[in-house]
C-alpha cells in the first residue's frame, strides 16, 4: 500500500492537481511516526511511510491546511474520513482545497500495547498480515498476534468504510458490527460507587497536558473554553478531583454529537486514561434515546443535541437507567 500511495502522490504532484501531500513521516524507530507535509517526490521517497504504526488521524490538520494556498492531497483512513466529513459539516475545512485519497485500514498496532506485554528495548519490528515480530536490544525475538496489540479502537472498529474521498486506493470497506459499547455497558452495570471509584482512579492520573483535546478532530475551537479566562471554567491544571472531572465532562459534552469515535484521545493520552469511554457513553445514550446517529457519516443530519422531538424522554429517565445503588 505504501508504494501505491507514494506513486499516486507523486502523480498528483506532478500533474499539479495538488501542491503538497499530507501523510506520515518515518522516525527514529519503526513506530515513532510523525504527520508531515511533503512537497516533493524526493521527500516522499525518502520519508513517506504507511504501515501498522501510521495511526495518527490526519483530518484535523486539514483545518489549517485547507486554508492555505493550493490544493493539498490527504490520505484518509476510514476513521479519519468520518472526522473529516464532520469537519465539513461544521464548516471547519475548505473541501475544495483538499484532494482526498481514501485508504483501507485493517487496524493499527499500539506500541503501548506491546510495551504493556513487557516488551521493551525495541530495535526492530516486522509486520505480517496477522503477527508482529519484535527484536529487542536484549537480543529477544518476540512474536505476538497482531489482533492482541491493536489499538482498542481498532479491535472494536466501527467502520472500515471511507465515507468521503475523491478516489479510493484499494477496496473500500463496509460499516462493521462492533462491540464498542460493551465496555460502556459494563460500567453502566456497576454500582454508582464502583463507577465513581473507577473514574476517580482513571481521571486522577490526568496531568491536563491537553493532548486529548489538541489531537481531537472535534476540538477545533478557535479558543477552547478552558483556555479562555473569561469563560468561567478556564483552568490550566486540575487543582483537585473536581477540576479533573470538570475538564473531562465538559470536553466530552462539547464534542457530544460531534465526536466520531475516532479514538485519538485515548491513543495519545500519556496516562492511559480510557477517554473514549466518556465519548462513547454520550454516543450510546443518544443512539438509545434519540435514534442511531453517527457523527461524520454524512453532512446533513442534525446532531442529536441540536435537535429534539416532541416526545423525547424526560431527563428523569436517567433515574431508571444505568446501574443502581
Amino acid at each position, binding site marked *: 500500500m505504501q508504494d501505491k500511495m507514494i506513486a499516486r502522490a507523486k502523480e498528483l504532484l506532478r500533474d499539479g492537481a495538488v501542491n503538497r501531500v499530507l501523510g506520515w513521516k518515518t522516525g527514529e524507530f519503526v513506530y515513532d511516526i510523525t504527520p508531515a507535509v511533503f512537497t516533493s517526490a524526493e521527500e516522499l521517497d525518502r520519508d513517506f511511510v504507511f504501515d501498522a504504526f501510521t495511526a495518527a488521524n490526519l483530518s484535523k490538520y486539514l483545518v489549517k491546511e485547507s486554508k492555505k494556498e493550493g490544493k493539498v492531497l490527504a490520505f484518509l483512513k476510514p476513521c479519519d474520513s468520518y472526522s473529516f466529513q464532520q469537519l465539513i459539516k461544521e464548516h471547519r475545512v475548505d473541501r475544495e482545497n483538499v484532494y482526498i485519497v481514501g485508504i483501507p485500514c485493517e487496524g493499527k498496532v499500539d506500541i503501548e500495547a506491546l510495551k504493556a506485554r513487557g516488551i521493551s528495548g525495541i530495535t526492530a519490528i516486522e509486520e505480517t498480515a496477522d503477527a508482529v515480530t519484535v527484536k529487542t536490544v536484549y537480543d529477544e525475538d518476540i512474536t505476538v498476534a497482531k489482533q492482541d496489540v491493536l489499538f482498542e479502537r481498532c479491535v472494536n472498529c466501527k467502520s472500515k468504510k471511507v465515507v468521503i474521498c475523491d478516489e479510493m486506493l484499494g477496496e473500500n470497506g463496509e460499516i462493521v458490527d462492533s462491540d464498542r459499547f460493551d465496555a460502556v455497558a459494563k*460500567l453502566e452495570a456497576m454500582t454508582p460507587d464502583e463507577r465513581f471509584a473507577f473514574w476517580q482512579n482513571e481521571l486522577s492520573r490526568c496531568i491536563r497536558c491537553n493532548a486529548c483535546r489538541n489531537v481531537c478532530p472535534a476540538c477545533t475551537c478557535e479558543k477552547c473554553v478552558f483556555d479562555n479566562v473569561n469563560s468561567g471554567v478556564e483552568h490550566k491544571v486540575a*487543582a483537585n478531583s473536581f477540576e479533573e472531572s470538570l475538564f473531562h465532562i465538559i470536553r466530552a*459534552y462539547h464534542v457530544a454529537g460531534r465526536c466520531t469515535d475516532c479514538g485519538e484521545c485515548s491513543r495519545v493520552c500519556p496516562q492511559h486514561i480510557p477517554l473514549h469511554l466518556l465519548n462513547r*457513553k454520550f454516543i450510546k445514550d443518544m443512539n438509545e434515546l434519540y435514534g442511531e446517529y453517527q457523527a461524520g457519516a454524512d453532512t446533513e443530519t442534525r446532531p442529536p443535541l441540536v435537535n429534539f422531538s416532541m416526545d423525547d424522554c424526560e431527563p428523569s429517565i436517567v*433515574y431508571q437507567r444505568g446501574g443502581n445503588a
Partner: protein
Amino acid sequence: MQVENKEFKPLIVAFCCNWCSYAGADLAGTNRLNYPADVKIIRVPCSCRVNPMFILRAFQRGADGVIICGCHPGDCHYTTGNYYARRRMTALFSMLDYLGIEKGRTRVEWVSAAEGQRFAETMNSFVSTIISLGENKRLEDLRCKTK
C-alpha cells in the same frame, strides 16, 4: 431519618425559566406555600439557557443539589427551548450518573406559571431527596468549602 442528617442544611440552586417556573415560584409565594429556604432561585430566560457549566459550577461552589425548572414541553415561551434543555440535561445527567455522581442531585421539572402548588411541592420533594443523599462529596471542590 438518620440522626446525623439533622444538622445537614443542603444548599440547592434552582434555575427557573422566567416565563413559567419563575412565575410559578412567584405564585407559590403569593399563595404563601412554604418550601425550605435552602432553595435559592436563579432567574434565566429559558431552561435552554442553562449551560452544563452552570450546574457543575454550582456543585464546585458547594451546592448539594441543582434543579432546573422550565415550561412544560410544548409550552416554552420560545417554543422549543425546553425541548433542547430536555435533551441536554438528559445527556448531562446520564454522564454524571456514569461518573458515579448520585442520580438524585440533579433534576429537571416542568412547572407552569399557574402551578404554584406544584412548584412548592417540587422543591419540598427535591430538598428531601437531597437531605437523604446528604452532602455533595463527589463533585466538590474542597477549596470552596473552607469558609
